[in-house]
């Protein structure tokens, strides 16, 4: 059971639309895709739900599973947790208040801005960095795809990841507690739903890292509620009587927003999965040791570039500046939320390394396999064309050693083989031209013996 749950992925394939081209194959940051029988196959243990394949697929065959708005009906009381990225999605709308008001009309009883929780988390992180000795640079835990990337490809850096939950998780907990207290209803009857720009968040909610169970009850894609919010945004609204997030929290939507909010002196932000991989390589080589805090975001433009958004990430980023001008600059720091934040929002379980990228067997067996992979790779053309269905020649070599492919999957190797066979046949033909008649008379009784009727 646990095994099945572990492999839940929000990113999946729509087989009818897939043409088996190499676009996703070549761009997957963890080499989690293979093309088999003209169809892309996602290797569950290697997929980190980053959504890169969703972005690059020209046929829209890669999809992210999220939950429909109707899921909120499963709870008596419903809270919307909008990511700050939601505010940037609507042309000419610079007042996030209008968007929040529209969420109430969609059937939510309460709206709790994730940006508010981001303020609390920023505070918890900065407390931890100041008061506790942690290996530098400390790495953000907010991007679920980056966490899974580290787990799989950079496990030595898991100790550097901040052991504080994400703003989404904190938002669900705070919102439910507040709602239960102020309305006097049991927490079990309250559902909290994240309005998400991110493909990895549903996987993160179903199979959380660092905590036992997520307080989030559902993940709804921004693109799935876009038109409905759009329809209500034009309506008038009465001013909201809720605590609003300040610019500090809302800026978490853009790269560096988090690093700035944490407020340490030496920080760095890297966005885009390939850039993040390069940064992690360098952190591993101890080249970023003088930095205090590193914010790593799988999507270009951070959450604004998430695969479940509607607006172009660059446009959204530019629009955010206008939105910030309409956002309170002063933070509402309620004691009951902020006090003990660093302990209250601490993760409770260690994040274990994933062995998905490693060879299996005893050390000796692994060495033998690795040597074989090197040997096979040297014999492959080294074009990394992807025509064999594996992303690189090296990946094909690994697949051959793992028993998932053969050298004949390589079209160049196959071509070579066909040429050799063809020339062998030509010479065979030439040398046996006069013997053919004789062979045929010998072959005839054999053919009778294999007659199916005799069986």
């Amino acid at each position: 059971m646990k095994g099945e749950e572990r492999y839940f992925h929000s990113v999946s394939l729509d087989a009818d639309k897939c043409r088996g081209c190499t676009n996703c194959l070549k761009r997957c940051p963890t080499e989690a895709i293979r093309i088999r029988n003209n169809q892309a196959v996602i290797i569950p243990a290697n997929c980190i739900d980053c959504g890169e394949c969703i972005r690059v697929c020209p046929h829209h065959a890669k999809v992210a599973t999220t939950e429909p708005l109707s899921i909120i009906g499963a709870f008596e009381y419903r809270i919307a947790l909008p990511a700050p990225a939601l505010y940037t999605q609507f042309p000419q709308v610079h007042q996030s208040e209008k968007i929040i008001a529209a969420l109430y009309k969609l059937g939510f009883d309460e709206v709790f801005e994730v940006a508010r929780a981001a303020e609390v988390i920023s505070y918890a992180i900065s407390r931890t960095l100041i008061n506790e000795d942690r290996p530098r640079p400390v790495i953000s835990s907010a991007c679920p795809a980056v966490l899974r990337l580290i787990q799989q490809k950079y496990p030595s850096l898991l100790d550097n990841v901040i052991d504080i939950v994400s703003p989404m998780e904190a938002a669900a907990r705070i919102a439910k507690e507040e709602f239960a207290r102020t309305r006097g209803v049991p927490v079990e009857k309250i559902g909290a739903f994240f309005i998400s720009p991110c493909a990895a968040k549903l996987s993160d909610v179903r199979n959380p890292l660092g905590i036992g169970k997520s307080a989030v009850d559902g993940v709804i894609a921004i693109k799935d509620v876009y038109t409905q919010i759009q329809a209500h945004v034009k309506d008038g609204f009465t001013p909201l009587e809720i605590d609003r997030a300040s610019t500090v929290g809302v800026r978490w939507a853009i790269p560096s927003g988090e690093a700035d909010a944490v407020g340490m002196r030496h920080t760095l932000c890297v966005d885009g999965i390939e850039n993040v991989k390069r940064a992690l390589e360098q952190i591993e080589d101890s080249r970023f040791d003088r930095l205090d805090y590193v914010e790593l975001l799988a999507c270009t433009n951070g959450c604004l570039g998430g695969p479940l958004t509607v607006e172009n990430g660059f446009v959204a980023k530019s629009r955010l500046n206008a939105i910030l001008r309409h956002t309170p600059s002063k933070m509402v720091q309620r004691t009951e939320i902020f006090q003990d934040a660093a302990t209250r929002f601490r993760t409770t379980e260690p994040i274990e390394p994933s062995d998905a990228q490693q060879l299996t067997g005893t050390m000796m067996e692994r060495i033998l396999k690795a040597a074989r992979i090197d040997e096979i790779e040297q014999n492959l053309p080294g074009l990394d064309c992807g025509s064999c269905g594996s992303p690189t020649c090296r990946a094909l070599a690994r697949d051959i050693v793992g028993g998932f492919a053969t050298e004949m999957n390589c079209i160049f190797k196959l071509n070579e083989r066909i040429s050799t066979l063809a020339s062998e046949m030509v010479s065979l033909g030439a040398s046996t031209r006069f013997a053919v008649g004789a062979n045929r008379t010998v072959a005839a009784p054999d053919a009778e013996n294999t007659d199916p009727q005799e069986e």
Partner: protein
Amino acid sequence: MTMIKESFQVKQGDMTTAGDASARIKRQCKQLGIPASVVRRVSVGTYEAEINLVIHANGGRIDFAVEPEKITIRVVDDGPGIPDLEKAMTEGWSTASNEVRNLGFGAGMGLPNMKRNADAFDIKSEVGVGTDITMVFNI
């Protein structure tokens, strides 16, 4: 003895290829499933050694060998050699040019860092002949 043996040539002064050898070594260690903490020390030590070859020596060679119980990295160059080994093994001591320092290298942590990260460290150096470093990491 079954093992993995790879050899990498490192070019002098070429900052575009600097780090390639240590990246390949790191990748192989990770694929082999060597414990993360060991991989980390191998990467740091090898990267330092490679940068030394690029900056201080006239380039050189890195030999990488894996046996079931240990990883051995040997770094050989026929560069200028180190006149005062004791000094060079002191943290903060460096002969790097300003140009190199501006790139973030030459803080004088190279050799001490290699020694600190390896389980066994051996260095031989002769002026005008070259330097020969061996780092062993227990798996």
